[in-house]
């Protein structure tokens, strides 16, 4: 760059202003770092936007391309076939699979929030011996890979386990192809996270508010649900949304605890796999189903995120 700088002649300006374009840019960046930060922000934003949104775009490309043309794909669809979004419902009752996913997700979320609220209250607001150990236990269990539980749970839920109490032997009910063998493991798996979130939130509610509610006429439980939970709305929303999305996305138990039919409570993953025929693989239908399946969650996240952020910034609590 030195070569680009003309020799400082008589009457020439300060040597600093005689640098090349990169030198000048560096100079201005040092003087005015805000611009650099902004530029870096846009670069990072762009990177994340592309990496998150490109798969969706790619799904759209695949969905719109007729299946026989799906080979050597470029970045644009080869053809325009929007009927695929109708065809997907004709070939497989995908709406039923979505319904199943919703029921599983909502049931699990309600169950998790209920139990995690109680646990969060206990861990966040009460003092008792063994609290640390118990919390550590929950943490440890949440680190187990779900596969570790598969065989015992499968045996349990398919009625192959018998419990003997004295003379009486009771075998477990066959719950295969019902929501139960999915909802229970989901709840157990996703509980620890919610417990942690809610413990933090409930622990921050001043004791005085709970005491006030109790003197005014609630029980401890009443105070929890009338005062502590509403005041922890951002935390409850976060825990709920995370749980719902996790269940909605879950594959392992969803795939193994039913026979993959819509009337056996199989969720969306099973629905998508259901398009796979013996003699064809309709990528376009699968892509269309994936988009439709993702939409509700995407909407939920957008709505909930706004609420979570507003809840957090409102700083609901003083004192």
């Amino acid at each position, binding site marked *: 760059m030195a070569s680009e700088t003309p020799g400082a002649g008589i009457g020439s300006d300060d040597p600093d202003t005689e640098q090349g374009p990169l030198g000048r840019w560096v100079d201005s960046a040092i003087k005015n770092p805000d611009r650099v930060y902004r530029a870096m922000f846009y670069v990072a934003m762009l990177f994340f936007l592309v990496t998150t949104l490109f798969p969706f775009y790619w799904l759209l490309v695949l969905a719109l391309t007729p299946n026989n043309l799906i080979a050597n794909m470029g970045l644009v669809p080869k053809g325009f076939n929007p009927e695929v979004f109708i065809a997907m419902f004709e070939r497989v009752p995908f709406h039923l699979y979505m319904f199943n996913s919703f029921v599983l997700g909502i049931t699990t979320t309600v169950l998790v929030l209920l139990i995690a609220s109680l646990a969060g209250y206990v861990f966040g607001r009460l003092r008792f011996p063994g609290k640390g150990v118990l919390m550590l236990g929950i943490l440890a269990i949440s680190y187990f890979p779900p596969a570790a539980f598969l065989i015992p749970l499968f045996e349990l839920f398919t009625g192959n386990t018998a419990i003997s109490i004295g003379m009486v032997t009771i075998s477990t009910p066959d719950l295969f192809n019902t929501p139960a063998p999915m909802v229970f493991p989901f709840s157990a798996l996703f509980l620890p996270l919610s417990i942690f979130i809610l413990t933090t939130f409930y622990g921050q509610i001043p004791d005085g508010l709970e*005491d006030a509610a109790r*003197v005014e*006429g609630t029980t401890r439980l009443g105070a929890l649900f009338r005062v502590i939970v509403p005041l922890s709305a951002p935390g409850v929303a976060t825990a709920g949304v995370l749980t719902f999305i996790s269940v909605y996305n879950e594959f392992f138990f969803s795939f193994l605890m039913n026979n993959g039919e819509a009337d056996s409570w199989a969720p969306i993953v099973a629905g998508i796999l259901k398009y796979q025929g013996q003699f064809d693989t309709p990528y376009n239908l699968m892509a269309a189903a994936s988009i439709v399946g993702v939409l509700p969650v995407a909407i939920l996240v957008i709505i909930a995120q706004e609420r979570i952020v507003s809840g957090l910034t409102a700083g609901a609590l003083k004192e």
Partner: protein
Amino acid sequence: MGDVTLEHVSKHYDDVTAVDDMNLDIEDGEFICLVGPSGCGKSTTMEMIAGLTIPSEGKVFIGDREVTNLPPKDRGVAMVFQNIALFPHMDVYDNISFGLRLRNYDKEEIERRVERAAEIVQLQGMLERMPDEMSGGQRQRVAIARAIVRNPGVFLMDEPLANLDAKLRVHMRTELQRLHKELDTTIIYVTHDQAEAMTMSDRIAVIDSGQLQQIDPPLVCYNEPANLFVAGFIGSPSMNFLDGEVTADGFSSTNIDVEFDPADLGIEAGTDVTMGIRPEDVYLVDDEALVSNPSRRIDAVTDVLEPMGDEIFVYLKLSESAETDLEDTSGVANDQLLMSVAPDTDIEEDEDVTVVLDRSRVHLFDTATGEAISHGIETAVQTSGAPGTEAESDD
């Protein structure tokens, strides 16, 4: 219906005893202050009355019912908290009506009662505000309205004024007294501020280290403190204390002697006693005429003056070496004396003065146990120290 009784109530936390064998008998309609230093167990006592804490031992009665193990909601009490504790997610109306709604009152009744409560605490027109849109004093009034709206038998107030600024606090004090007059309900009020306790209550319960020290009307606590703790706690600035010994002529300490006949007080010569005298009962010798029963003259040097406007506090050094020991919190200082004089008194720092004590206002305490022996020595000075000295001895 609003009388509260504690019978041998104790509360232990692990190895700490927060409240130790507390017996309290509070009558219906009484305004009682539980007063004591931080951590003395006064809040725990109140929580046990409220039901927020279950006593380890003993029984709690409200009205004729034993409520020891009842949850707070079934005790017919209402509470105002130090941190006010309004529900931030509800507006004023919902805050005040919270308890009524839980008890399924019908809508008109709730409305009527909330209006009435809002009127009493002067909150009309603010029922739709959220707590964070209100000032500290307004929030405190909402909390009081929430408490009175249910017509409870007993009000519990846990340092309700502690978070308010000084001016507002004095104002709210008056408001609370007015409220008590209007409602005529038992109020149990916890505070660490003895001035608050003195000004508002019918009786003061002084608590220290979890034990009830004295329960009496404010002036009795002030004039006839049951022990050293009460004497030091009630009154501001604190009473002067001097450690000494009873001799045949009376009380004798390093710098001050007070004559009396120990036999009249039932003390044996040789007993270690602590003498207490309030700053306003120390007089300059010029004012000796005002004192019916003065002690011997005491020479002192003035140290620091604190003009308060309506009086001047004068710190007196009784000996050359007098120094304030910051480590010593017992309040006993044998070479210092705090005196209060009229604001127009001509007095300077580092001036030699002569003072006398009002013997009829001298308190004697047993140094070992802290228990009061006598309050005031009622006879004229016997220069000869002859018998015939009488003392008024309480409890």
